[in-house]
């Protein structure tokens, strides 16, 4: 492979931000027709490297070559013009514009007087969308597309130029499994056309599915490149964090207590219908299903953010009506939400204030907030969750994803809930922190919490749950104990194949 001319090559890239060396002499290459995965924990320098590649950052030292021609990439547009395209993790589309306009954003074809040449635009965009097997036309407004289809628009952007290298940054973060398959087909097509792919992801299974080689960054430095077919997860993990991880199936059976929470024929039209489940003290109940299967919506209903259209919620075997999150909290239900940045944290607030927010009304001495009590709570959960923050005064927005997530978890543990619901506990955080959070969930269950874990990652659900509820299109398809569940029957259940319908 090495005798080929690399599509893209970086040589000794150094990038410093005031006070820190984000990239310390990183070299990296991707060959035409190769999918080269880039791994590293959060903060290892992946994003910086990616931004250097895409022309969003300028390196302090080092050189960039495209097909062995040295280039300078002062702006994203220059990078794109030279055939290097970045597909963003967070969708960067203008909602009120058509798919075609988004695809050609920044370089809409012009006629006289700066008018848009709609004919050319729609024709070219239509061609690309067709190539991607999209079932919507180029004139569709983006606001009417689903998240997966929006992602397709994002990918279509890469195909507007004669791309030499395409960088995917966590492309599957919001995709369903079926959509992932389509994405991987597209990546294979690109490879077949001789395009070099840089694939950044936290998900090990994807990397092993799609990549040819993988390179690892740690602390801003290059740690080595492996051929995917010749390595395994352990080796990669060791390279990333300097140790190996236990990521096995959950086989522990905790001592179970009484039923803490139960749902009977719970419905919230049209999101989910006739859902039945219960969770005992000391038990972790996993919810697995595709995005949109209704899992998050069930959690939101239990937490008072939605009102059920019918059915019952029982807490300690007594029927309750959860009117609002405040009500849920008062009843001992806590929810670690799906999106920590949008739902979990006030990013501009400090660590302590975020952590004590749900109980601030109780932490008072007379009319005032009791400062000491607040700090005591923060210290307790900082130690217990090993949160790395300079001080309680640190603004949460400045912490890493893993530490932010621990603040959210700490915030809800501090409420000492009877039922803890965790929605996507490890989304977008690095491998090291992931494992810590999994262990934490198990540990909490052992100490008697009733826990509901919602996840889109099968290894995660298998790893932490005592029982698993498989959902498909708003209905519970099947409930598994950890003994009877296999990857195969779980996948089948969430795809609507087989499984006994729990009516």
């Amino acid at each position, binding site marked *: 492979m090495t005798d080929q001319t690399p599509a893209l090559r970086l040589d000794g890239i150094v990038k410093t931000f005031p006070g820190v060396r984000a990239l310390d002499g990183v070299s990296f290459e991707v060959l035409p027709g190769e999918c080269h995965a880039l791994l590293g924990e959060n903060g290892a320098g992946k994003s910086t490297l990616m931004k250097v590649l895409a022309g*969003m950052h300028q390196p302090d030292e080092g050189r960039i070559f495209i097909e062995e021609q040295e280039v300078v990439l002062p*702006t*994203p*547009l220059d990078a*794109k013009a030279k055939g290097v395209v*970045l597909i*963003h993790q967070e969708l*960067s*589309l*203008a*909602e*009120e*514009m058509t798919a075609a*306009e*988004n695809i050609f*954003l*920044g*370089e*809409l074809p*012009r006629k006289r*007087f*700066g*008018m*848009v040449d709609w004919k050319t635009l729609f024709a070219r965009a239509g061609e690309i969308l067709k190539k991607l097997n999209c079932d919507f036309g180029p004139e569709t407004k983006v606001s009417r597309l689903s998240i997966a289809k929006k992602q397709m628009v994002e990918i279509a952007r890469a195909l507007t130029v004669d791309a030499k290298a395409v960088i995917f940054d966590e492309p599957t973060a919001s995709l369903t499994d079926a959509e992932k398959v389509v994405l991987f087909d597209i990546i294979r097509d690109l490879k077949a056309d001789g395009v070099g792919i840089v694939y950044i992801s936290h998900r090990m299974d994807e990397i092993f599915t799609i990549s040819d080689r993988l390179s690892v960054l740690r602390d801003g430095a290059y740690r080595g490149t492996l051929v995917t077919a010749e390595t395994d997860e352990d080796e990669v993990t060791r390279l990333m964090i300097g140790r190996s991880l236990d990521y096995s199936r959950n086989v522990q059976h905790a001592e179970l207590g009484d039923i803490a929470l139960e749902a009977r024929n719970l419905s919230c*039209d*049209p*999101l989910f219908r006739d859902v039945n489940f219960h969770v005992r003290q000391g038990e972790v109940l996993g919810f697995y299903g595709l995005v949109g299967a209704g899992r998050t919506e069930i959690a*939101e209903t239990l937490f*008072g*953010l*939605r*009102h059920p259209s019918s059915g019952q919620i029982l807490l300690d075997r007594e029927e309750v009506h959860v009117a*609002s999150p405040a009500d849920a909290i008062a009843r001992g239900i806590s929810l670690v939400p799906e999106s920590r940045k949008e739902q979990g944290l006030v990013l501009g607030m400090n660590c302590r204030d975020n952590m004590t927010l749900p109980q601030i009304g109780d932490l008072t001495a007379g009319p005032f907030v009791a400062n000491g009590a607040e700090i005591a709570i923060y210290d307790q959960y900082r130690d217990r969750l090993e949160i790395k923050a300079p001080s309680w005064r640190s603004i949460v927005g400045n912490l890493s994803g893993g530490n932010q997530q621990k603040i959210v978890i700490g915030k809800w543990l501090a409420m000492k809930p009877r039922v803890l619901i965790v929605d996507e506990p490890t989304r977008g955080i690095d491998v090291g922190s992931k494992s810590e959070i999994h262990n934490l969930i198990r540990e909490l269950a052992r100490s008697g919490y009733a826990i509901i874990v919602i996840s889109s990652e099968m290894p995660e659900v298998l790893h932490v749950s005592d029982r698993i509820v498989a959902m498909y299109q708003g209905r519970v398809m099947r409930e598994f104990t950890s003994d009877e569940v296999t990857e195969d029957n779980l996948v089948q259940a969430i795809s609507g194949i087989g499984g006994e319908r729990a009516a």
Partner: protein
Amino acid sequence: MNNALTWLLRNPIWGFVLLIFVFFSVSNEFFFDPQNFKNILVQTSTIGLIALGMTLVMINGNIDLSVGATLALAASLAIDIQGWEVFASWGSWAILPGVLAGLLSGVLLGALNGFIVWKTGVDAFIVTLGAMLGVRGLVFIYTQEQSFFAMNFAYSDFGASSVGPLPTLAVLFLLFALITHLLLSRTVHGRNTYAVGGNREAAVNAGIRVGPHMLINFVIVGFFAALAGITLSTQMGASTPNLGREYELWTITAVVLGGTKLSGGSGTIIGTLGGVLAIGILRNGMNLMQVPAFYVLVILGTILIAVLFLDKQLTRRGKGELRT
């Protein structure tokens, strides 16, 4: 029919315009009259012209509070300069340098606002709130608190003139509305306006130069504010330093009634036209019906809030909404 209905659902303000139009037509005999429609068009043209530019700025996710003061400055310059000794021998052509100077002042002030927003990164609301005070100061410094009068009646004749059956000012307004509509819906700059307001990050990454882009839109709103000042001054044949006070508030109101989101990214000229007409028809209709002035204030305020409320109910996402 179905098409018309979906169109109306997307532009609910036109439904409201239709409603009050019918209401006033039925309840007041003077309302339904071609001459009155011409009056309404001329009366709305001032706020209307500014609203055209404001729509662009607001789709960008910005706002311009300084338009009222800009309007006064342009009007004062236009009237004063056409009376300068230097142009005494120019006859009616003396109007030209005055009008050009007025328009130029609007363009320059718009550029200044845009430049400050671009370079400092300070929120446009704050930048233009400052400018709203400061430009008014400029007006008073320039005019020394005086009103100016256009010696040449040709100037105010223009304001009262007609093109065919329609008043010139109405034609001018509709013409610019059409041009702005085409600008926004057909040109690259116009389409980029939605991108910059809808997702600035994406626009930056796509290589759109967001700073200069926003500057151009501020220049456009400055130009329209100045133009509105000039057309208003042709109606009066004069300018006053207090001209245009609170116009920024009514303009923003009209644009928001027309469906443009304050957060940016969406809005249309057709909607804005509806918003402007709604306010114009309400004012005209209430004048004709002799609603006491004190009540007009209450009614306008209430209707503004009510329309916002109804719009929210209409566009609500339905049952899937989270109770946050």
